[in-house]
């Protein structure tokens, strides 16, 4: 056992570090504080500038082919780059959908000229993508979506209501799953498209989240016309395409942003609780130890993934437990950090420690346990795909979609 890079890996890591040193600020104790997650125009422009720099140095889309602006590198290099980038203050989150989900889906299902048209601007951050999948009555049960796609000659007429779309209010393009045939079983009647967000008939409304921030939207589609040439996959095989996209999503959702163990550990050292450092309190120590074990355990699990990739093997399934561990941990750290402050934990102005990181995280953590697969869906995935347990009995199995019972919510 060792934790050393091979010479090739070390060279790549050094190159990544040199790029980051030249172009970004290293994280310090002072930068580990809450920073607004609201993406305004200025933040988007800043993110675009950063993305263009990354693309120029071929650190965006590391695993993409070079002809589309990527590096033609390996998944291992992507992980090494991510490890290094984690140590720097850089804009995140705006291009995940395009670079991480949409273009990889296109690479499987679109003709080369389509990929050539959309891949380079997505990689450079010139064009932003969003995902029109979830609906008010189709969340975890995504295949239960109701947005209609009706064939009209060479076009499709789309009507419906999408929700939980990240960044749709400034996106240039979207991918969309809609129901092209409601008379067949639910998974069989879906078709997958991409479209410009400037297409007539699209209305975007921002959703105010419990954190007060509005990064999610709902999107109304009224008689939106999409040419059949913008269909990905066959008619009625949209679910298969969406599964490709969602599989890529799990790669892009990694560790939740903090506060993490090191933040609450430093805080507990500095902060007095009942007349002594909070870290001297046995109950505090016990909880801290458990968070350390979770955070560090995930790190070691990633080491195992890296080992497999480094040997050219397929990583084991253990990597899929990350989100199920890190999102509830974030919520607990936030809640307990506030507990240490006593009644002052309720104060959320700029006098609160780390720019009110615990308080803000307390409000954004619930979303982390839901987005990209709820805790419950993650447990189903572990139970069914890793442990090989049977799926739940489905009340809607083999029933035409338009005969499936619906509730009031």
């Amino acid at each position, binding site marked *: *056992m*060792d*934790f*050393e*890079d091979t010479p090739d*890996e070390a060279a790549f890591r050094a190159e990544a570090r040199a790029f980051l040193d030249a172009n970004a600020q290293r994280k310090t104790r002072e930068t580990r504080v809450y920073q607004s997650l609201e993406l305004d125009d200025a933040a988007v422009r800043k993110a675009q500038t950063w993305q263009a720099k990354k693309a120029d140095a071929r650190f965006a889309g590391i695993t993409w082919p070079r002809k589309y602006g990527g590096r033609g590198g390996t998944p291992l290099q992507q992980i090494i780059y991510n490890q290094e980038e984690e140590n720097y203050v850089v804009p995140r989150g705006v291009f995940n959908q395009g670079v991480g989900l949409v273009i990889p889906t296109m690479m499987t299902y679109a003709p080369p000229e389509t990929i050539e048209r959309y891949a380079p601007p997505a990689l450079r951050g010139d064009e932003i993508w969003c995902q029109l999948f979830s609906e008010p009555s189709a969340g975890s049960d995504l295949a239960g979506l109701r947005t209609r796609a009706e064939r009209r000659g060479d076009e499709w007429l789309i009507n419906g209501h999408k929700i939980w779309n990240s960044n749709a209010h400034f996106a240039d393009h979207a991918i969309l799953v809609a129901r092209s045939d409601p008379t067949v079983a639910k998974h069989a009647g879906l078709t997958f498209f991409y479209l410009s967000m400037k297409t007539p008939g699209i209305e975007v409304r921002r959703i105010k989240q419990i954190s007060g921030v509005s990064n999610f939207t709902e999107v109304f589609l009224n008689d939106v016309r999409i040419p059949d040439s913008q269909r990905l996959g066959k008619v009625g095989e949209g679910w298969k395409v969406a599964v490709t996209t969602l599989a890529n999503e799990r790669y892009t959702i990694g560790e939740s942003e903090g506060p993490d163990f090191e933040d609450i*550990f430093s805080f507990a*050292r500095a902060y007095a609780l009942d007349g002594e450092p909070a*870290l001297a309190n*046995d109950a505090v*120590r*016990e909880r*801290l*130890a*458990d968070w*350390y*074990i*979770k955070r*560090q*355990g*995930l790190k*070691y*699990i990633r*080491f*195992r993934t*890296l*080992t497999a990739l*480094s040997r050219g093997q397929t990583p084991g399934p*253990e990597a899929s*437990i990350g989100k*199920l*561990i890190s999102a509830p941990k974030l919520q607990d750290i936030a809640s307990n950090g506030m507990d240490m402050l006593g009644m002052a934990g309720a104060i959320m102005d700029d006098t609160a420690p780390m720019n009110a990181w615990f308080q803000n995280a307390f409000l954004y953590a619930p979303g982390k346990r839901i987005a990209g697969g709820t805790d*419950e869906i*993650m*447990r*189903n995935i*572990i*139970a*069914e795909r*890793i*442990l*090989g*347990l*049977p*799926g*739940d*009995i489905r009340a809607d199995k083999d029933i035409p979609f338009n005969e499936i019972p619906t509730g009031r919510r």
Partner: protein
Amino acid sequence: MNFDFSDEVKMMRDEARRFLKDRCPPKVVRRALDGAAVYDKDLWREIAALGWIGVAIPEEFGGSGIGYEALCVLAGEMGAALAPVPFSSSTYLAAEAILLAGDDVQKNEMLPEIASGECIATLALAEGAGNPARNAISTTYRNGKLTGTKWPVPDGAIADQAIVVAKGGAGDIGFFAVPLEGDGVTRATLRTLDPTRNYATITFQDAPAVPLLANGRGWTVVETILDRAAVLVAFEQVGGAEAALHMAKDYALERFAFGRSIASFQAIKHRLADMYVALELARAHAYYGAWALSHDAPELAGAASAARVAATEAYYLTTKENIQIHGGMGFTWEMDCHLYYRRAKALALLLGNANYWRSRLIGQLEHLEAVE
């Protein structure tokens, strides 16, 4: 990055698994459970002949010196099989104490007999209830004689020799080798939660004892022994937890209720998913502990503490939920669920409880931060 065992070590693991599947099925474990034997002498002789006891003992002292990574994977298999033999006491505790505290002459005298399995040895540390603590030691060594009472002593009912932690002449903590069949030693077997792991009270009254001479650091050495043992016991715990998870999963798949396999109910699936998550976290920490142990790294204390806590929690969770998933059948003597449930708690208590190790872990991190 090579965070995995070598092919040679993995081959040893697979061989050990095959051997124990054949030689240590539940009926062998149950002979100890039912009181027919305190431990399985034949199994002990066979694993000694295979060289397992001496796998991390250097060749010059009668072992094979293959190393700690090998000992870790063997521990995992012993844990999974619930082997009713004094492997942990002789190998992780007594042999390690001698390696850390004995001089070369003493290592030469004592270790070959331990490695060959002829001498069952143990570490006599505790003097009553509570976690390991320096101020709990009152057994005293003076003029070649040891006096005091140690309980509970793991494998104390069957051990031939004890390495006793006691106060020396100046009140310093030291290690003293005492043959347990000798003068001034009386012992009583204790009734225990997990009869496949025996405990005894051992009373020393002016018992002839030999001080281990290499090291005067006293309690620090005790903590190093505990750290090393914590990693090895974590492998036993992970091995047992994995066995319990598989048992629960296999039963859930076969058991039908309400017209379907109970493994299709989310109440069961989510429970099994949580067991898997706890197991994988524990395994990751145990691997890191194996690295720290085999490299004698300064990270050992922190790595051992984290592995100990993660493995203790995973073994408890998987064994209690294994009984729950089995329903009423899991509560019967005939089903093997309770063998793992008992062993999980016995190992959880062996080296200090989980909160003792949580506090030790945070103490290590405080120390590291202070060094920075």
